């Protein structure tokens, strides 16, 4: 009964959302529903935070492997919440100097800004930079010319890798740039052709297929054929 009611509600809301894209009188509902979802997502942060604390405190108390990291997580979590909510170190707004919490918590010099600038920013940049190392090891391990398709892939990879840096310009600088018959052979131009023609075609085809897949999957949910999101094994 509960699952059926939820599935019916999902169908009604889904159909209304589809109609908001076409019917002017219903347009306001589209943005309203998005706002409702944002409210839900914001409340979900509380649920997430509580779960985060619970899981990490359990790890600390049980001294599971890596419990030290959990201790760091809990400490940083609580410190960041405290600093943000209490606006520690934030200067009051000049228009309201007597109101302690009137300042912008993200203003330069405040504790929250300090955490963002000297903790979050370098850490996330470092983790993103890890990709360069991982892609190098993946390239060494996995990019082997095992068959014709792999050989074509490798050739393309060499052209694009070299064409996007100055060494590619140097390697084919001897090819005349003003001769339309051969200038396309310069690595930087070949790289552009590969990206703009071959990659473009493949990407467009995949995007069309994925869009149709998304539409079909959404339709299954709207008409109640797929109820997996409700926890049903149907």
């Amino acid at each position: 009964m509960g699952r059926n009611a939820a599935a019916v509600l999902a169908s009604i809301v889904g159909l209304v959302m589809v109609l908001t894209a076409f019917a002017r009188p219903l347009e306001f509902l589209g943005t309203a529903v998005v706002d409702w979802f944002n409210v839900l997502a914001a409340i979900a942060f509380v649920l997430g935070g509580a779960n985060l604390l619970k899981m990490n405190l359990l790890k600390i108390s049980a001294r599971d492997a890596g419990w030290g990291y959990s201790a760091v997580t809990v400490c940083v979590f609580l410190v960041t919440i405290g600093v943000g909510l209490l606006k520690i170190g934030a200067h009051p707004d000049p228009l309201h100097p007597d109101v302690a919490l009137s300042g912008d918590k993200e203003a330069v010099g405040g504790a929250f800004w300090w955490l963002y600038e000297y903790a979050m920013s370098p850490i996330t940049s470092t983790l993103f930079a890890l990709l360069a190392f991982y892609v190098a090891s993946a390239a060494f391990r996995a990019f082997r010319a095992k068959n014709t398709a792999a050989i074509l892939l490798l050739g393309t990879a060499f052209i694009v890798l070299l064409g996007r840096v100055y060494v590619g310009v140097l390697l084919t600088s001897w090819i005349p740039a003003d001769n339309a018959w051969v200038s396309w052979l310069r690595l930087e131009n070949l790289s552009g052709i590969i990206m703009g023609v071959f990659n473009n075609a493949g990407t467009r085809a995949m995007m069309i297929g994925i869009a149709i897949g998304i539409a079909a999957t959404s339709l299954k949910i709207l008409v109640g054929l797929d109820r997996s999101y409700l926890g049903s094994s149907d």
Partner: protein
Amino acid sequence: MSDRPNESFLARLDRIDRRWIFLMMAIAVAGPIIWVGVTGRTFPETATPAVQGAFDAIERLPEGSKVLVSFDFDPASAGELQPMATGFIHHCQLRKHRIYAMTLWAPGSPLIGATLADVIGNDPSYRYGENFVDLGFQAGNEGVMKQVGVDFPKAFPNDSKGTPLARIPMMQGITRLSDFDILISVSAGYPGGKEWVQYGVSPTLTQGHRLPFVAGSTGVQTPQMIPYYPVQMSGILGAIKGAAEYESLVNAKATAPGETVPAKYQEAQRRMAPQLFGHSLMVGLILVGNVIFFAGRRKGAAE
């Protein structure tokens, strides 16, 4: 000493600890960074059509045009995208355009303030509220994009400091997205350039004219954006290479011959040296990997 005494060199190389590869990459990137830092030298850049298109789209706007810049990235991708954001703001400043900065990424909000402070700084001709404004972050992803398309003040009722839009002179007359003269998105993922095309730019078609749109994106995201160029997008800055090409165009406009370009406007060009060595290392690793593969195949066939 290897624990497999009869193992060939190539076989041992195939089993190399990946940390040696990480070390090689670290040296390939760090060395050029130091070299560029010491010498200040960069490689020459020639703009590709997509980058030239982005430059021309901003260049051909009349002075004082309204430019909406969406900082859809976070500190993680700032290494690749910050030079683009700096370049766009610098170009708009040179053209005396009015800059409306916003973001759909929560960690992107401080980046707006930092970029505007870094580029505009104490320029007396650029006053907050009259020539540039920081609208800050708004939650809602595509919902915000759809909302700004029909009712901009409802999506952004205040600027990042909480000042109501009605009290900001340059917000007068801005009711929806199509009131801007161009949209620029510096995009690291979702929500980003693709969503702006789908939910922001395409609907403006039905309002009379399509809003010109220019985007800068990470290298990984660029193939996803290329299908939209040149129809839905006037230009794309793809990865740090695109940023370097764009910087060279803007610096050529901003700097007289013989004049030194400030380092902050050469960040992308400076990063092309480590990019060169990194890519060369990748090519070398792929070649070595394939030598090992074919040698192993030949040995297997012989046995």
